[in-house]
């Protein structure tokens, strides 16, 4: 603490603060304009000047640090006049446009002009009183508009793009009076590296940059904000969503929370629009004479209950399958799994997490005793080396991608292993392009090198692990030459990766579907655990294994027991003690037999063993591998009912469809990729005629004859806490603010930032377990007819089966159709040009899709996303399953390419 004097009064303030921060803390108002905390420190505008004793100039409060004995005046005439003159200058070219400006009411410049009573700058020429239409590089993209006349050259946008987005798409060009915010060489913004995260828009204090989608949708004072959680990926960005007077969402802002630190991506910023869509289901539908027709809630509920009862009576409870959803809340999932287990009496409950991280849940559980990401997002900034494998981070978890790049700027190193030269690979210090499906070999090779260079942590291994000797024996087989041959990666690179990762003080591993979606998915995850264990990179800050979760609540849906083998909190259904506990808690007899996985639903249906499916918002007919066969299975069901917000590809073939509320209309919780349970708040009212997902399940249960009564999600969470030890201390009341990271066993527990702290693992004996994992090739290999490897995945702009993002006008306009990424050399060989139509075939089917020639896939590899129903890659993907996790091999299929027309 130091002593300073402000306006004649003595104060004690913290050292290291700026004058502006110190004053803000003391309630003394100092206006700022160009300054943006943690983002922009250019101190250009001079609005914040103060007078200081013995200083020859007026220092800028936003960048001048307090010093002992400092004497500051903040209100003198000189200060006021200087600020005023600076403002006059800033306003010198600013049009008097507030009446029709969309920023009216949230514009810092307008506020200052009002405060200083400047109606019109003394420097403003008549010709500039109204803004003229001018051409800018921002004119042709659907997301961001720029009005240069309103720009005050504060540079906040450029700094936001550099420091928050970590993209550096835009810049300050020219000098003197010609200075302007520009794109390089004046290219249209969409041709730059811009990713449309709109951090620049959020940073802009004036109307110069604005979300195009918001223009004309209402002034700030007419919008109602709600703090909630992004409903797309597992980062779980905290967003402020604004609804207009017509109950439509029109704008999103990123909140400066612990999770996303004021950042978001294009889906968070623009992706809310689907909730406004006229396609929303608002009335229940029942299939009559082969067609889905409108019905009342009472009819639909009665009919569904009756059919389910009939089938249960005739074929037994295990003839029915139930699907929870990673897009629904914890409360929704808890209720539906309870309905399946108690109401219907089966463990046939699963959710789409099967298709993304079931390998993680299984693998990390075997190795570490807990199937979740071990560390936290805030930890990223403590890691020296970030090892990314099978994760297209900047597209699938964009905000984490930004953190990783920020940490690199702070000095940390990035290693990327990926068959595609994705954006994060381009930023990497070391890039290893391995052949899809060779992850185990690669990781074994890296570990072998770590041992050869004596970089393993012997003490950690001895104290906290078991099974090391077996692994060591196995690694003897994985010398550089052999590994290089299998993986197609140069030996030198493998060695360097080993030295870098093994030599780090704390190294963090990030992975996603590139690891899990293989017939060796669990093996891959075990190998990753081996790598972290061998180097002691677990249970400490900046280390660990970050299995990045794909969907907003994929962590939560699994935590809630929407899985066939476990109750909430991963308590096993075949453990008699656990079963007894739940029988007591739920007051019912429960089945001890683990149920079917969703990937088994269709085959069992085809074989006539599964007779009915009840689904909550799932869309397997779009997203499962080899969907043609999945469809055949579902079509054979005697009864299929679903609840959804749109008539999805799956809902189209249902016998009953219930209209549900969307995530942005719900109360409840999502659990993000770092195990953080966060509160959702309804940002708009749900459409008339719809019900909440948990509500639909409860009403159905009641008609079915099993009564579940909850006053709302808060009460459901209280029950979850009662039966789930790792969440015992969680309640809605405690979740306000930053939420809580499980394990949080008691009501006074602060939550857990790092799992396995100090090497105490969650396995029964407290030790981490090595697994000697042998490399097995992918299930399907290339041959003459199918010479290419097809890998599938996501792209930045769209999301999963596309039912949401395809209904966001700006996004669908920007990326309206699917494409196949082909390496330039392969394309030349096949005579395929950019934008040519090509037919991509595998042993299961073919689709026609536009070619995109790209340096991203390595030779022999092609990539197609799974967001487009018109060209669904899942007609091609391989349904072969991992034997343990039952995940299909989405990442490797042998395929052929054929040009159709230019």
């Amino acid at each position, binding site marked *: 603490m130091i002593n300073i004097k402000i306006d004649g009064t003595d104060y004690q303030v913290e050292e290291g603060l700026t004058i502006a921060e110190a004053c803000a803390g003391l309630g003394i108002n100092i206006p700022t304009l160009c300054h943006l905390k943690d983002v922009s420190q250019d101190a250009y505008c001079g609005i914040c000047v103060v007078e200081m004793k013995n200083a020859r100039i007026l220092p800028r409060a936003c960048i001048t640090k307090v010093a002992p004995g400092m004497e500051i005046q903040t209100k003198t005439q000189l200060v006021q006049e200087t600020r005023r003159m600076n403002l006059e200058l800033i306003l010198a070219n600013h049009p008097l446009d507030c009446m029709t400006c969309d920023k009216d009411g949230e514009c810092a410049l307008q506020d200052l002009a009002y405060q200083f009573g400047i109606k019109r700058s003394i420097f403003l020429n008549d010709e500039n009183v109204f803004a003229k239409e001018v051409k800018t590089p921002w004119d042709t993209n659907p997301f961001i508009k720029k009005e240069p006349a309103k720009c005050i050259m504060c540079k906040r946008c450029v700094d936001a793009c550099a420091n928050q987005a970590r993209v550096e*798409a835009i810049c300050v060009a020219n000098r003197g009076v010609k200075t302007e915010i520009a794109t*390089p*060489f004046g*290219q249209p913004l969409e041709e*730059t590296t811009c990713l449309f995260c709109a951090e620049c828009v959020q940073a802009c204090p004036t109307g110069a940059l604005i979300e195009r989608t918001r223009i004309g949708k209402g002034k700030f004072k007419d919008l109602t904000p709600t703090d909630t959680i992004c409903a797309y990926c597992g980062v779980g960005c905290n967003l402020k969503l604004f609804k207009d007077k017509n109950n439509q969402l029109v704008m999103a802002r990123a909140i400066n929370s612990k999770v996303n630190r004021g950042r978001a991506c294009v889906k968070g910023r623009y992706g809310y629009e689907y909730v406004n869509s006229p396609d929303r289901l608002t009335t229940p539908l029942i299939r009559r004479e082969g067609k889905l027709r409108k019905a009342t809630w009472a009819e639909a509920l009665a009919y569904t209950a009756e059919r389910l009862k009939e089938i249960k009576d005739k074929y037994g409870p295990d003839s029915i399958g139930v699907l929870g959803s990673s897009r629904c809340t914890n409360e929704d999932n808890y209720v539906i799994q309870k309905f399946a287990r108690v109401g219907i009496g089966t463990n046939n409950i699963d959710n789409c997490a099967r298709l993304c991280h079931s390998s993680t849940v299984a693998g990390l559980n075997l190795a570490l005793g807990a199937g979740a990401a071990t560390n936290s997002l805030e930890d990223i900034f403590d890691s020296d080396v970030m090892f990314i494998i099978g994760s297209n981070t900047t597209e699938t978890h964009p905000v984490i991608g930004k953190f990783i790049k920020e940490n690199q700027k702070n000095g940390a190193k990035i290693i990327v292993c990926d068959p595609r030269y994705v954006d994060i690979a381009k930023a990497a210090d070391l890039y290893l392009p391995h052949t899809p499906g060779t992850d185990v070999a690669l990781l074994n090779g890296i570990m072998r090198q770590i041992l050869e260079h004596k970089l393993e942590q012997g003490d950690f291994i001895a104290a906290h692990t078991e099974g090391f000797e077996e692994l060591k024996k196995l690694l003897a087989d994985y010398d550089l030459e052999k590994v290089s041959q299998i993986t197609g990666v140069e030996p030198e690179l493998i060695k360097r990766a080993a030295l870098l990762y093994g030599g780090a003080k704390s190294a963090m591993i990030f992975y996603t579907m590139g690891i899990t979606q293989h017939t060796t998915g669990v093996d891959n995850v075990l190998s990753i655990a081996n790598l972290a264990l061998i180097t002691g990179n677990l249970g400490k800050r900046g280390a660990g294994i970050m299995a990045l979760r794909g969907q907003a609540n994929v962590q939560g849906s699994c935590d809630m027991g929407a899985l066939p083998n476990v109750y909430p909190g991963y308590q096993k259904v075949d453990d008699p003690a656990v079963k007894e506990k739940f029988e007591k808690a739920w007051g019912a007899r429960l089945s001890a037999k683990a149920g079917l996985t969703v990937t088994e639903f269709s085959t069992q249906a085809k074989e006539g063993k599964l007779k009915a499916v009840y689904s909550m918002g799932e869309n397997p007919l779009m997203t499962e591998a080899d969907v043609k066969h999945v469809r055949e299975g579902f079509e054979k069901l005697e009864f299929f009912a679903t609840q959804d917000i749109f008539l999805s590809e799956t809902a189209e073939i249902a016998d009953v469809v219930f209209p549900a509320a969307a995530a942005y209309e719900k109360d409840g919780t999502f659990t993000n990729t770092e195990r953080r349970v966060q509160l959702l708040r309804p940002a708009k009212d749900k459409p008339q005629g719809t019900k909440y997902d948990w509500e639909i399940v409860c009403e159905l249960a009641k008609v079915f004859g099993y009564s579940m009564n909850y006053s709302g999600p808060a009460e459901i969470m209280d029950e979850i806490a009662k039966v789930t030890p790792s969440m015992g201390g969680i309640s809605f009341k405690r979740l306000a603010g930053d939420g809580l990271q499980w394990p949080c066993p008691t009501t006074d527990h602060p939550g857990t930032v790092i799992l396995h702290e100090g090497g105490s693992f969650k396995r029964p004996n407290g030790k981490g377990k090595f697994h000697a994992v042998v490399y097995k090739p992918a299930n399907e290999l290339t041959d003459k007819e199918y010479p290419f490897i097809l890998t599938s995945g996501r792209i930045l702009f769209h999301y999963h089966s596309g039912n949401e993002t395809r209904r966001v006008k700006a996004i669908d306009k920007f990326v309206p159709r699917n494409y196949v990424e082909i390496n330039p050399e392969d394309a030349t060989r096949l005579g395929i040009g950019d934008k040519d139509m090509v037919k991509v075939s595998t042993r299961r089917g073919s689709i026609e899709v536009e070619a995109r020639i790209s340096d991203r896939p390595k030779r022999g590899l092609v990539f197609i996303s799974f967001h487009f129903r018109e060209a669904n890659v899942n007609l091609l993907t391989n349904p072969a399953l991992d034997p343990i996790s039952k995940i299909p091999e989405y990442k490797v299929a042998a395929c052929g390419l054929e040009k159709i027309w230019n």
Partner: protein
Amino acid sequence: MKKEIGNVEIIIEKWKGIKGSLIMALHELQHLYGYVPQKGAQQISTAFKIPLSQIFEVITFYNLFKLKEPGKHTIAVCLGTACYLKGAPDILNELKVLLKVEEGGTTKDGQFNLDVVRCLGCCGLAPVMTIDGEIYGKVKKNEIKDILAKYKKKEQK
């Protein structure tokens, strides 16, 4: 074009990895083309791992760099004190009107650049302009058309 790309690669090889070498590399790029083409700058950006936006900031910060392919002939009008007083602004204006171009710009047909310079050291001849280094002294407004015509003719031959 192929050959030119090869040359950009030589520049990249020469300067890559050397700290603070961006300006030198851009300078040589400009030397190669007479201006800094976007494609070449993009190649440097990729090789140096410097965002194109930063390169663009540098290019536009220094007057030295040109963003457009220069015209065949460069006209420089002196606006030094002597020339100024003797009517150089009129000369400049006439050129602007005749060529339909602003100072610093290039005519649409790519024939002429119009630049402004300070004192060429031959104030006795004021007002002075040069075309491709050739000096025209005591220029009168009504002569300009003919002077320009000489260069246009040269082209047609």
